[in-house]
């Protein structure tokens, strides 16, 4: 059967299938994100994208945990107080974690070097980020298919992830110990600028990110009484 024998509709259908499969091949699959955030992050961490995050070690560790558990290397640049043990408990494999705690004003060069081979790099910019630098780094990210997680603002970030309404449970006035934190994660992406939120437990008692699976008890308000 040659192409001439096909009806127009069949030919179109076949072409369309070819195009989709080729596109799918060209578009690399995203790095895994925590299941609770997959919906908000459009399926995961997109290769070649930069994400702007709030300063939160727990959020950073939760985002690093997925790719790290998948066998990828992770790097953290410019965060001297990164809690490695907490990150390990959150699911980051410490054998494949590299820290560059104090790159000072070379942070951009170090980050650019790291994204060559390390697929997920978290960075805290040192000073203001210039638009041109960000654009140069972005093209390198797209070329290498790495993900940049920025602690702070970033020009033309793929998405901005913020935390709010944090509420710790487990500690009262002089008793108990920190158990878990409920927090609202808000994501506003370039594609969907309208902010979408989800209420999560971050960190849960074992240090990871978890969904709220029990009805929220109105207890914390009573326990965490303001005393001053």
């Amino acid at each position, binding site marked *: 059967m040659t192409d001439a024998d096909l009806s127009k509709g069949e030919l179109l259908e076949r072409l369309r299938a070819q195009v989709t499969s080729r596109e799918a091949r060209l578009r690399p699959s995203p790095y895994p994100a925590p299941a609770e955030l997959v919906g908000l992050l459009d399926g995961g961490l997109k290769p070649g994208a930069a994400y702007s995050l709030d*300063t*939160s*070690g*727990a959020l*950073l*560790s939760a985002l690093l945990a997925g790719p790290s558990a998948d066998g990828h*290397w992770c790097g953290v640049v410019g965060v*001297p*107080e*990164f*809690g*490695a*043990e*907490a*990150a*390990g*408990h*959150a699911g980051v494999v*410490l*054998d494949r*974690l*590299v*820290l*560059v*705690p*104090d*790159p000072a004003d*070379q942070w951009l*060069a*170090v980050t650019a*070097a*790291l994204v*060559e*081979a*390390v697929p997920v790099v978290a960075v805290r910019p040192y000073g203001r980020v210039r638009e041109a630098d960000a654009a140069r780094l972005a093209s390198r990210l797209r070329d290498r298919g790495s993900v940049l997680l920025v602690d702070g603002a970033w020009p033309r970030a793929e998405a901005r992830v913020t935390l709010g*309404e*944090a*509420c*710790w449970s487990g*500690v*009262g*006035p*002089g008793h*108990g*110990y*920190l*158990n*878990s*934190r409920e*927090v609202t994660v808000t994501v506003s992406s370039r594609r969907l600028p309208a902010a979408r939120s989800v209420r999560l437990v971050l*960190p849960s*008692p*074992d*240090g990871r990110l978890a969904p709220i699976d029990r009805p929220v008890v109105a207890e914390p308000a009573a*326990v*965490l*009484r*303001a*005393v*001053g």
Partner: protein
Amino acid sequence: MSTRVVEPTPRVVESPQTPREAGGDRCLVLWFPGWPVTAWALSEGADVHQPLAVVVANRVVACSPEASAEGVVTGQRRREAQSRCPILRVLPADEARDNREFAAVLDCVEQLVPGVQVVRPGVCALRSRGFASYVGSEAEAAEVLLESVVTTLDIATGRAGVADGLFAALQAAYAGDPVRVVPSGESAAFLAPLPVSRLGDETLTTLLPRLGVHTLGGFAALGPTAVRDRFGQHGLRLHTLASGADPRVVQPRVPPPELVRQIAFEPPLSRIDQVAFTARSTVEQFIAGLSAAGLACTELRIEFTGDLDEFVARTWGTPGMFDAPAVVDRIRWQLQAAAGDQLGSAVTGMRLEPVAVDALANHVPGLFGTGTDERVHHVLSRVQGMLGHDGVLTPRIGGGRWLAERQELVPWGDRPSPASPSAPWPGSLPDPLPTTVFAEPRPVQLLTAGGRGVAVDDRGMLHDVPTQLRDGEERRTVIGWAGPWPIDERSWDPVRHRRASRFQVVDGTGTAWLLVLQGSHWWAEGRYD
């Protein structure tokens, strides 16, 4: 059976492939009595002229001449040796040390004569013919070798023996004072009066005297067929030795390639980039020498000497192998770290030594490109080149109670310190852990409603209610707190003794803090963010 007995001489039975050299080969043996003691003195840099004995399984195996003078002999029990010589110093045996130190003697001998065979640490053999005709006579040849060892290494205990065959030459060395030459063809006559114990065989040494054979001559007089029937092939071999016809020839060792490289800077260099630039060709030779030997250096020791006799040494590791630029980087980093306090003058010399090597085949890039980890290593090495060795770290969780103490940051390429025992560490924190750990304690203040600092009394009790957390200029309201949890560690060590109380505090913005009160000072150990 009868057909196998009619062999012309037992020597041919032993080594049919070397009938020509056997017997005709003049052999020179150098023997250093009590080598384990000498080796210990060389490695420790200690004085050998004192009563010393090396003991294995409670028996003396070697002793110094001073100990012998007091009545210590080899084979003696340790306690007996100590009772004869109360100031005897007993040393543990170390075969590796014996071999290592003997290498210096071999190097010294090989400077004069090539083709040395190590019989055991302390004894080496070589063919005497060529060197003896060069020097003049066999006795002179032996004296020249012994003298060279004395002048180079200051080992004066050496003795030499020259004879036909290895066994006879060894016996001649034992009899030497300091040199004994047994003329060609007279080995059998020389060996004849020696006791059979010289064969070094437990069974024969006890059995032959009971059969009425006390000397090697008596043993050699027995017929080879009778010896083989009674003692088998092993007995026949010893019989050949006793009759002065040692079939063994000297098996010269292949000298190991010299991998260590050194360079002297003349005039001394005072700038780091000068040193790095000048050292480049030496480094390239060093790597080329290793590659020629089929080796890849995985651990490297770099030593610098300064103009004021300073000595700076450090061992560097790498997850992969060292190539020339990596070594030059290490040279630069080591000088940067040492400049000032350890090295205050210009550099006069440098020495590169491979501490650990691996087969080069294990480090050759694969045919279809290298793995991801190899690429990561390249990139991280590059970043290290930009920031210095301590710029790129990998975390490792060790032991301890304090968060900063638990996370060990190991520079990329360095070997982590051996794993600390996974002790239970009472007083360590439960999950979830602070996601921010301040490397340097961050001073804060926890205040009561009245503005006073919160304090813990001697019994570890808290009487005030904290209401405000002051972090620098920032004032935060305390909405929840827990503690104090006392930590009292290393009370046995006055220097490292530490007593503190931990608190968890939640502030009005929903951020939780891990605070520590030590004495009257508050500081933040970590933050839950």
